[in-house]
Structures are given as C-alpha cells and as structure tokens.
C-alpha cells in the first residue's frame, strides 16, 4: 500500500465492497463516484447542509466529513438500503403521501436523519423531530410537511 491509496472494505447496506481508494477521499466521494450509489447527495461538501447524511452504526453522519478509510469496519446505511424488496420504508411512504418532497435533493439525508431519530426514540415530540432534522437544510418545503410526515409515522406506530 502506498502512502496515498489502498484497498479497503466498506460495509454499505449490508454488502461488503472491496475497493481501492485514495486516503483523502471522503466517504461521500466513494459512495457516489466509486460505488455508483448516487442517492447520497453532495450539497456543500463542507458539512453544513446535511444532504450527504448517511447512518453509520445507526448514527446520522455527514459523509462529506468522514474519510472513506475511516469508515472501514462500520455499518453504513444509505438511502438505497432503506426500502426492502421494493417496498418503501414507512418514513419514505409518509414523505410521499403527505407532500414532504419537492425538489428532492435534501430528501435522502432528511429521511435518514428521521430514521435515526425514530430508531432511538420511537415517540418523539415535534420539538425533538425539529431538533433531529435541524442539520438538514431544505430550501423548498419550509420543513412543515416534513415534520408532519415524520409525526405521522410516529402516530401510526405510537
């Protein structure tokens, strides 16, 4: 292995990918450009917008701020891994049904932040929902229907 690149294993959506990466590549770079998983979006590449949110061991993480090499040995969940057997996850379905999606660029990161919240806190208050998605910028929706969609999932399971 030279100083600038090497072979790593990444566990993404339950599948192990063995790939050659440069040491300075972010997880976002690798997911999109090397693995072709373009569902995770590049909004700012400097950790301020949340569009690149993935779950690492269940925790919402800004993939533009994590080096790919540092993500080895972790369980990474991207938006592509959320629906099972072609069925939308309840959070995805709620976003669709309640008009919480407009341009859609913030949507993958937003949904994953919501999933992380509901997995750790199945009955959040509206304030807790807003705090959980406060790191995910949206320019289209004003967040209102996003909050409504997440609370609707809480209501169904609660």
């Amino acid at each position, binding site marked *: 292995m030279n100083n600038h690149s090497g072979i790593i294993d990444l566990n993404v959506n339950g599948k192990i990918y063995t790939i050659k990466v440069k040491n300075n590549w972010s997880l976002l770079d690798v997911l*999109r450009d090397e693995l072709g998983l*373009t*569902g*995770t*979006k*590049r*909004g*700012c*590449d*400097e950790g*301020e*917008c949340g*569009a690149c949110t993935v779950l690492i061991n269940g925790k919402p993480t800004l993939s533009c701020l994590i080096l790919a090499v540092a993500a080895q040995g972790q369980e990474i969940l*991207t*938006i*592509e891994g*959320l*629906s099972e057997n072609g069925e*939308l996850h309840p959070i*995805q*379905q709620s*976003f*669709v*049904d*309640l*008009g*919480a*999606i*407009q*341009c*859609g*660029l*913030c*949507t*993958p990161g937003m*949904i994953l932040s919501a999933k992380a919240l509901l997995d750790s806190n199945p009955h959040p208050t*509206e304030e807790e*929902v*807003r*705090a959980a*998605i*406060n790191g*995910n*910028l*949206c*320019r*289209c*929706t*004003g*967040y*209102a*229907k*996003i*909050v409504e969609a997440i609370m609707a999932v809480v209501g169904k399971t609660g």
Partner: protein
Amino acid sequence: MSTKKTYTVVGKRVPRIDAKEKARGEAKYVDDLTLPGMLYGATLRTPYAHARILSIDTSKAEELPGVKAVITGKDLPDRKFSFIQAFYPGREDKLPLEKEKARYIGDEIAAVAAVNLETAKRALELIDIKYEVLPTVIDPEEAMEASSPKIHDKERNVVEEVHDNFGDVDKSFKEADYIFEDRFRVSHQAHCCMETHGCIAQWGDDGRLTIWSSTQMASHYQWELSEVLGIPYGDIRVIRTTLGGSFGSKQAMHTIEPIAAYLAKKACRPVKLVYNREEEFLSTRTRHPAIFGLKTAVKKDGTITGREVKIILDNGAYNDMGPGLLHDMSRLFCSYYKVPNVRVNGYCVYTNKGYGSAFRGFSNPQTAFAIESQMDIIAKKLNIDPVELRLKNAVHTGDVAASGWVFPSCGLSECIEKAAAAIGWKEKRGKANKRGVGLATCTHWGGGLTFGQSDFCGTIVEINSGGLAYIRSGEVEMGQGSDTEITQIVAETLGFDIKDVKLMPLDTDLCPSFDYVGSPVTYVAGGAAKSAASDAKRQILELAAEMKALNTSDLDTMNGYIYDIKSGEKVMPVSEAAHFSYEIRGVPIIGKSSFHQGPTMFSGHVNPDGSGTYSPTYSFAAQAAEVEVDPTTGLVKVLEFITAQDVGKAINPMGIEGQADGGVAQGLGYALTEGLEYNSDGKLLNADYGHYRIFRAQDMPRKLTTILVETEDPGGPFGAKAVGETSMVPTAAAIANAIEDAVGVRIKELPITPFKVLEALIKNKKEK
C-alpha cells in the same frame, strides 16, 4: 368560465408523480450522471472585483498529466450574451470567459477539463494570470456618480432607466392631507438551491451539441447557447435533468453551459461541469438589491391618491435580467392598490459585485417591502387600523390600475380579511408587550408575463394504442410540482385515471418550445396542456362516434371509458378506440396546442399614455405574522405565520400548501437572516451555509397555515392562476410590521438582523 364544479383529479391532494423515485434516492440530478469517456471541468475565477487582465499563461496547466483541455477567453469567439438581449438588444455584456477585464470576484477567466476533478482543480492552480487591479465601486449610489470607476468602460454605470408617469402626481401631492416620504433598502438574497448549477456537454459526430442541464428554461437555453456559440439553434439539444431547486437561478443561461461546451469541443470528449457551494454563492446571481425613495400622498380618510418612487436597482457586474426587471418593478409600483397617480424614476446601475437575475417574486419582494411597510407607517400616523387601510384602498375584480393592469379576478379583500382573522388580529394587535402581529399584501402576475414578449408554451398530448396518454410539454418541473399539476389537468380533461397519463422528460428535440417566467407555469403551460388534451379527446370521441354511428356531441369520457352522456351507458374503453385508430387505420391520435396570451403591453397593446397590462390576470395574497422580540438580544422569533392566497383554482392543494410553506421560509430568511455581505474590496464574506443563514427546521414558526381563496379566473385552466411566487412577496413587510407592533421600532432595511433591532430600540429609548 366554470362554476363551482367538483372534479375527479383537479382539486385533489395528489402525491407528486416523481415522489417515490425521489424518496428512494433514484432521481437523477446532473451530478449523478456520467457518460463514457466523460471529463470533469473546473473554473478559474478572478480574486479581484475590478481588474484589467494583462496576461494569462496556461502552459503549465496544459502539461499536467490528465488535463485534456484548457481554455481562456482568447479561445472563444467575441460573442457576448445576457438573457435580456432577446428583448433589449445591445444589452449583452458578458463573455463566458472574460479576457480584458474582471468585474466581480467570481468572474470566470479560464477553465480546465481533466480526467478527474482533483486533477482539474490542481491545473487551475498552475494557471498564471497577471492583473492590473482597478478601484472598485460597491455601492450603487456611488456607482451613479460621474467620478466612480466605470465598470464596462462606458460613460456611466447606469445601464437602464425607467420613467413611468400615470395620472397627475404633482396635483395629488398638492391636494394631499398627508405626505409620507420614506427610504427603504433591500439586500442581495442568494437562491441557495440544494443542488448547485451543473451541466454535461457533448458534441456529436454530426456537429450537434447536446447539453444535459439543471435548467429551468430548456428552450431558452437553446436560443442563448446558439447566440453565444454562434451555431444554429437547431444544432443544439437541451435535456433537462431533475432539478434540485432553481427559484429563478437556473432560468437564464449562466456561463457554465458555454464553458462546458467549449471544453468538450476542445477535448473532443463529454465534459461535466458542476459548481461547488462556494462558486454557487459567488457567481450564480442573486435577487437584485435596491434602494427606494417612496413618497405617497394620502387623504385624511386614508385614501391613497398619489405615489412618487425613485428606484436604484443594484445590477451587480453584468446585465442578465436587470434592465427588464427595472421596468417590471416600476409597473408594480404603479399597480398596487387603487392609486390613480404614480410616477417612477428608476435606474439600473452596475457595481463590482455578483450580478442579479430572476428570483422567485421577480422584483416584487423588494417592491412589496417598501409599499407594505409604508402602508403601516401611514396607518399609524392617521390612526387607522392597517387592515382597514388596505381594505379601503384594495383593488377588486374588474378594476384597472394606473399602470393599465386589468384584474379579471381578484380575491385581495378576501385574502386580507381571512389572514387577519386567522392570526387573531383584533385580539393581538396593539399590545406592545414584545409580541406583535403584522400584515402585508401583494399583487403579482397570475398568468403569463410579458417580460419582453408574451409568455407561451406548446404542448402535445398523444394517446397511444393502449389508451395511455403521453404529454410532451415545454414546461419545466423544478421541484415546484408543475409536472404533477400538468398531469392532473390532462387527466381531468381526458377523463383518464391519473396513472394512465405520463409526462415525457423534457428534451428540446422532442418537446415543443416554451418561454415563460416562473409561476405562470400553471396558467400558461396548464392552459396549453388543457387545450392539447381537449384536442386529443375530440379526436377519440369523433372516432368512437364513427365506429358506433353516434353523434360526437353525445359522447364524453370518464375513468378511461367513452360513454353516452344521455344514457350514462359505457360505449367502449378509450383504449379500444385508440387501438382501432393505430392498428386498423394507422392514424396516431395527437392533440396539439399552445398557449399564447395575446395582446399585452409588449406585444402591441399599449395605451396612448404608455400603460398596458402585463399579464392576462393577477394573483393576490395577504400574509400575517405573529412575532416575539427579545429586547435584550434583538432576536425575532416568528410564532405564527398565515398566508391567504388567491389561486384562482387550486389544481393540487397539497402542492400549493408546500409551495406556500417554502415561499414563507424563503421570505422569512429575506426578512430576518439572509443577505450577501460584500466588503469594500468586493469580497463576499459569507459564501457558505454557515455564514449565510437560511431558515432551518427549528427557526420556522410552529404554526404555519395556508388559506386558499378560489376566485375562479375566467382565463386560467379550470380557473387556476399562478401560485408559486406570491407566498414570499409580502413576507418581509409582514414581519417588519409585526416587529413594529411588538416593540415600536420601524426598520426599513433588510435583513432585519438582531443588531438592527437593538440599534433601533436603543435609539427609540434615547429619543423618549
């Protein structure tokens, strides 16, 4: 004109047709696409706001392994462009790569295409440019002075003037009981689309250029590219990718498309060029800042009789849309409320900053801030309730404004009353206990807009042999929901289930042209879609009538069936008639139509006094806010926000609510937190999301309500009018008015930062 009808699809809360693919992360934005052999582009921008370019040495960049093309201004023909040149010839002033002068920090000077982005960026560092730094001028009032640096080496920096004059303004001031004179100032607002600008350019063996672009106006990009590249319009194909927001920023072609095209030509390979977030803030144009001097004549009963306005519109470094937008702004000042005498003198001025372009509301958020703030100043002085003052001066259906704008449908009064009632106006107003309520209204174009020519849109609706309908429309979905709206309109017109109507991707090789500005999509593209669908339906009914020896006029469609109107009996499925047409007769069923709004101001209908109507109809809104102000920090918390909006007819209420929510979020940012900050050297100080603050989930009011007022416009499809822009027009004024109610300070400059609130409170205290 329709009476209050119930429809099957129109008026229903239909989920977006692209929602599922977006929820899965499967929608493809420009940066998600790759082509075989594709290169990655990067752009070198000037670090100086005003400088002569003395020399450019690209030799080291060209030698870097992996670099396939380097271009500068000398590689491109001397063809300037600006969006406005289509309507104001001679105003084109921008080269894709500047070669003589840089005029703002962000101006494009050179570009590179390489095998990966890292190499392209490294190559930029190897390009050596020598500049002669020139004095900068940042403030538009300074830029108007004879002694200021001349940004385009012309006699002056004023590039356009407007002088509109209706009625007898001087008489109205002579006869006024009160005269109000106020100065207002509004800032640059950045679009902050979550998706930055991007495109992929590829030249074919046949010499045709294909551009995949995050464009809001595909067929206009075709024209603009044709002008700047100097190749025939028909040799350019523009394919619109999924847009991650636009709000006007992707309406006029930017330098990104011609730069990518030239890189691809030189490298003989496709080139993807996508801006990073810093470039997006630096260079992708803004809402025009402006300074207003607003003088208003008022009678003691509150009747507004005259208005005189001076506008200084800060163009930034290049024209883009500025000269035309100045005229639109002037006409807005001449059209709000029943004011018969209005005079406007306006100036569009170059400065060494990022330049302005279209942004949701298109000069109206700026205008409304001035007019609607002053309405409350007037109300306070005259001791009239601000709601009553507005109702007194409101326009109504059938009125004609001083500017010549005609209002075939108008729900302004209803919007005002409903917004005031919903916020609890009577209970909450005038308490001055750090909580306050404020209201503001707007008038906005509701149909096509004559920005320079009439808006238009072509549409084809084809019913295939399986009985499915395919729409090819020029309309552009940018996240606002027009794709779904158009599909609903076509499904309703055809009598089809919405799942049997498909909208084709926008490709200028396949879809008819269009040209319209923003929210008129409902009226213009919706109107064209309805008409094309009606044409297709007529063909199907005529065929079914022939097949069954019936009269066409006895037949109609519903739920995918043709049925006899009198008996209610099903005659045959639509698919059977379609199959017969295609497979037996060999005749495709193609409905086609276009919307063109006919005579309006710029297309020939000008009154002797220079007035004329801009749009076939107008939308209206009233917004009300409840705020809480912390007098120790100056922080303003928005507790509740109401939008009451005259939409004509709500094609998709869920979609409109979403648009209104998002518009309010942008309007609140415009009011309180957003504004690009330039220092005296023209350097942009807040070119990132950390320092340019848009509203986040925790910032938004917890109570956000949209009230839809349906006035059923006689000209709109199913009575609908434009909806998407109105919800951010009066927002800033509603907030300024609520702050005044809460703590007694009037702030006339946006954004209303905590610092400004504190400063005003301290000044207020001293004066008392």
